[in-house]
């Protein structure tokens, strides 16, 4: 299967291991990732915070390139990029005045065709749980995981139209298909503080702190993520949060595709597991998975 691939800045930078493992897993599933040629940043929090037309236009340029590459589906594994691309696509389809304006700004026909999917949606709708289960040669037995969706993989519901906006289950099902256990917990779709990581770190310490606390209380061994902002915030701020609360968490924050890679038989080195700040190795070794 051929899809257009939008890695976004994070998968080339702060969440490289997410990008690496997405590529490994997709190849294994027989998916051809065609990187959108010369893609630009989706504008992230900055553009939608200060300039609506700009945020739609930045995504529109990327979607137009995907269309010109004759792709009818775009895979955006970063939840932030997904949200911008999907939101832009939704507005271009539903607001003809804005679509015309954006066409002027990007000097191209406004792209309405390509469908945009996040990773969970892509696995559920285009691959299916059976494919995941069939490829699993090293079941994730004994792992108790907190599937963490954050805000943007399922919200806003009218735009995303996938899974339940506040009680999603797709990632739990994918993890279970690989033999893992998932915990029932309260914060699976709460916010980690997102784009405030650098600009107002206290917001992230507060909100990510609540997520860590909730996962620990539910008895999870690790938190699984499908978003680089969630991943980076929960991992890189964990020490500071623990110090502030005078506690210890030691909760590895692992990208879903890294665990899929392990289940499919790849080595930790091929999946960039060493790049995680909170080491997942003691946990994985104790279950015979690394």
């Amino acid at each position, binding site marked *: 299967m051929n899809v257009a691939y939008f890695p976004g800045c994070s998968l080339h930078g702060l969440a490289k291991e997410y990008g690496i493992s997405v590529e490994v897993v997709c190849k294994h599933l027989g998916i051809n990732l065609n990187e959108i040629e010369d893609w630009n940043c989706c504008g992230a929090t900055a553009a939608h915070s200060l300039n609506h037309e*700009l945020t739609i236009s930045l995504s529109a340029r990327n979607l137009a390139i995907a269309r010109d590459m004759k792709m009818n589906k775009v895979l955006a594994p970063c939840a932030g990029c997904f949200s911008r691309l999907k939101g832009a696509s939704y507005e271009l389809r539903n607001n003809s005045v804005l679509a015309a304006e954006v066409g002027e700004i990007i000097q191209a026909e406004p792209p309405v065709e390509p469908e945009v999917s996040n990773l969970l949606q892509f696995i559920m709708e285009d691959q299916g749980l059976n494919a995941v289960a069939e490829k699993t040669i090293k079941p994730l037995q004994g792992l108790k995981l907190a599937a963490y969706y954050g805000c943007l993989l399922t919200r806003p519901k009218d735009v995303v139209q996938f899974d339940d906006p506040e009680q999603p289950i797709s990632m739990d099902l994918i993890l279970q298909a690989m033999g893992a256990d998932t915990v029932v917990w309260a914060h699976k779709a709460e916010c980690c503080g997102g784009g*405030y990581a650098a600009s107002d770190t206290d*917001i992230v310490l507060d909100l990510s702190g609540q997520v860590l606390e909730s996962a620990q209380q539910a008895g999870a061994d690790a938190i699984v993520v499908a978003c680089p902002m969630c991943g980076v915030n929960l991992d890189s701020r964990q020490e500071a949060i623990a110090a502030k609360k005078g506690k210890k968490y030691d909760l590895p924050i692992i990208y879903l595709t890294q665990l899929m890679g392990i289940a499919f038989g790849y080595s930790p080195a091929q999946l960039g597991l060493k790049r995680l700040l909170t080491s997942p190795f003691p946990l994985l070794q104790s279950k015979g998975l690394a």
Partner: protein
Amino acid sequence: MHNTADFYHVLRIDQTSNSLREEIKEHCHTDIEMCLECGKCSGGCSNAHIFDITPRKIIQLIKIGEEAKLLKMDALWSCVACQLCVDRCPSSINIPKIMDYMREKAYKQCVPATRPNVELFHELMLGSIKQYGRVAEALMTVQFNIKSKQYTKDAEMGIKMFFKGKLNPLPSRIKNVQQVRRMFRNIPAQREG
């Protein structure tokens, strides 16, 4: 003795203005007249515990046309855009969109942001996109620390990230950056002054 009228400023409907309400309807495609005042938005909001004005109140202030207050509020700079409010609202009132609209308006009118570092970070990120077409994380972090005068902020973490191979020291520039810059120029209304 106090005059009760000093305590209770009852607003008469003919003293309020409709224009903001109409503007929101036009630009955010959301009709705040449909608000039931149920408070589900504030109840679900990720950051209501630090907001100066909570989502339900924001809708009320729009109703009575209190624009100046809304343009100055801290909630504009601490909303995490988590979309919980809009998904819980029985009338689908798009509060995150209203937040974006009001913040953009405040920014264009140069109303000082209550969290200048948040505004600065957004500006630096847009600057990076304009220059390179992508975000140059390392460069931006250094610029942010210098401009916000927090010289050692996250330095230790930055070094850790660098050794984990997560921080690219050199920004990568896209080939057709001219096209992206042209887009920035083609955007109609920009910041005044």
